[in-house]
């Protein structure tokens, strides 16, 4: 029983990471109706942004690993990733906005390959160790909790839960209660009508890319705290899993992406723990096929009618 609960904690932590990345896929799909396959690589750039900014930011916050230091690195990585995301859209996708959607999709694959290979050139192909920005240790669970005290919850995991929860609430507030959020929703509902109503499409699309990329950057730092070994190809697999999560939850649907991410994380932990780790990826991608066959709109997505 303890083992099962522990697997749930493990899965929830990994799933939160998928959720953060899946949100970026889903938001971009919402406004532009295409899959930004370079999104997983933005996650990788977030980790490297942390690697390069950590030494000076930690010094600024008093030296060694600390909570304010970690927060500063997290914010810096989110900011850098937001800028990168906006630049990618401006340089690569915007010139193609009126072209067939397939053209943009193929460009996205090109951008992804470019970031991976330029990353190997700039950062080196070898895995690098990520600096300790906060000490990841197991938290003591008091004896008074009985059998539950055998559970292990690490600082890194707690941080992942906390930051993910906070970012999800923040995102919901932005989308629901700000003018830009309203513009985003309007754009995803009907781009032509939105621009006729005076919505500045370019600004809203840039904002969406910035927001999604910042979340990926946060995921990059949260992952690197727990798994302090980063390399330029670390975004490929995790990006694909997050994409599956976005489709599972219903692509274009924000709560759906969060739900999908957490479900994929839990599924992975249980497959690895109780079935066979070799089947982990097969089962996750099997879920993608299954959901596309049974409910293509995803768990929370509404079926979209093609207008003729």
């Amino acid at each position, binding site marked *: 029983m303890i083992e099962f609960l522990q697997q749930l904690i493990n899965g929830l932590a990994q799933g939160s990471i998928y959720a953060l990345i899946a949100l970026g896929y889903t938001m971009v799909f919402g406004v532009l109706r295409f899959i930004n396959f370079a999104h997983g690589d933005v996650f990788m750039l977030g980790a490297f942004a942390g690697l390069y900014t950590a030494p000076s930011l930690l010094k600024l916050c008093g030296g060694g690993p600390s909570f304010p230091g970690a927060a500063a690195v997290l914010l810096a990585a989110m900011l850098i990733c937001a800028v990168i995301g906006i630049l990618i859209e401006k340089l690569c996708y915007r010139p193609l906005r009126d072209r067939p959607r397939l053209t943009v999709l193929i460009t996205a694959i090109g951008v992804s390959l470019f970031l991976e290979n330029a990353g190997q050139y700039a950062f080196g192909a070898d895995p690098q160790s990520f600096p300790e920005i906060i000490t990841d240790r197991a938290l003591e669970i008091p004896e008074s909790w009985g059998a539950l005290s055998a559970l292990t919850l690490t600082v890194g995991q707690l941080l992942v839960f906390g930051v993910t929860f906070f970012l999800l609430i923040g995102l919901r507030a932005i989308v629901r209660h700000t003018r830009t959020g309203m513009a985003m929703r309007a754009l995803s509902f009907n781009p032509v009508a939105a621009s006729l109503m005076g919505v500045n499409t370019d600004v809203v699309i840039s904002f969406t890319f910035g927001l999604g990329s910042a979340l990926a950057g946060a995921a990059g730092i949260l992952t690197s705290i727990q798994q*302090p*070994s980063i390399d330029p190809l670390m975004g490929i697999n995790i990006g694909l899993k997050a994409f599956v999560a976005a489709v599972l939850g219903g692509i274009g649907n924000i709560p759906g992406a969060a739900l999908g991410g957490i479900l994929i994380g839990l599924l992975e932990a249980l497959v690895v723990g109780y079935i066979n*780790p070799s089947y982990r990826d097969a089962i996750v991608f099997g879920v993608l096929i299954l959901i596309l066959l049974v409910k293509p709109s995803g768990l929370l997505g509404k079926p979209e009618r093609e207008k003729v």
Partner: protein
Amino acid sequence: MAMLRSLLVAGALTLLIPNPNAAAAEEIPIGEYASLTGGSASFGQSSHKGTELAVEEINAAGGVLGKKLKLITEDDQSQAGQPATIVRKLISQDKVVAVLGEVASSKSLEAAPICQQNKIPMITPASTNPKVTEVGDYIFRICFIDPFQGTVMAKFARSKGWKKIAVLTDVKQDYSVGLAEFFVKDFTANGGEIVRDQKYSTGDKDFKPQLTSIKAARPDAIFIPGYYAEVALIAKQARLLGLKVPLLGGDGWVGDSLLKVAGHSLDGSFFSCHFSADEQSPDTRNFVAKFKAKHGEIPDDMAALGYDSAMILADAIRRAGTTDSAKLRDAIAATTHHDGITGNITLDSARNASKPAVILTVGNGGFQFVETVAP
């Protein structure tokens, strides 16, 4: 037709250009291919430094057969496809009499068929996969092979009195699967119990699910025959989950980033390896001193193996009395009780080295010698 003619002219021209190596008959050309740059550069750099030191020493002592050895080194950039190309170049252009290399089994497997076809002896310093020397009778290795390493660690675990072991294998690496297979075989045949058999793939970063399952089985130790990049993360996450038992592994653990990533998580763990700079035999101390003087660093096992591979080749040329490839091959095959830095090396009929392994432990931010295990 015009193209054919220009090809013929080009061919004739190359015949006219004198081969620079043929002119220097005072030297014996020896080829070396290694990963000097790219992903496995730390392996290649080490073995190359060792080889270089050996050749320098041989030449300082007057060379072999009255001639100096000329080491021609090519970088395969850690890339698949490169070893085949550069070994072809070494054989056809540089006319090397023998080839030394590679560390990684996959690279050695690429170059071996080419050496075999051209009947040029190849000695790999550190490829432990059994398939490498199975390519043909011109392919040799001076390190032990995976089955031996797996068995050594099983013996060691038993000698520590551990009864219950969990195994965590990298299913993407033949190396890891091979070590695990022979570890399990020996350990269970002698009354031990494998309480969990968990798996992961190269490139994985999150091992908490596997480790949670292993923790529930309460093993005395965990055998992780993987490569250093993943092992470091596994160790870190195991300690976080409260798994305090020793971890066991093989020579794949030795890598630059192992302790940088793992920190103190690996303290008290053990792994098998080819060589230890801490071993107090006079030969080892002498080698470590010379290596430090030349390269300014302490040699690791790849450096020691690179050194031994060049020494064994030089010794074989001396015994053959010629660089004729068939006679040289026979001389290498006849290597017995060569007193190398990595132990007493005898090549068996399958052209593999039968030699001892050393077991190292991790502590104080480095590796410490524990014991030598004879085959």
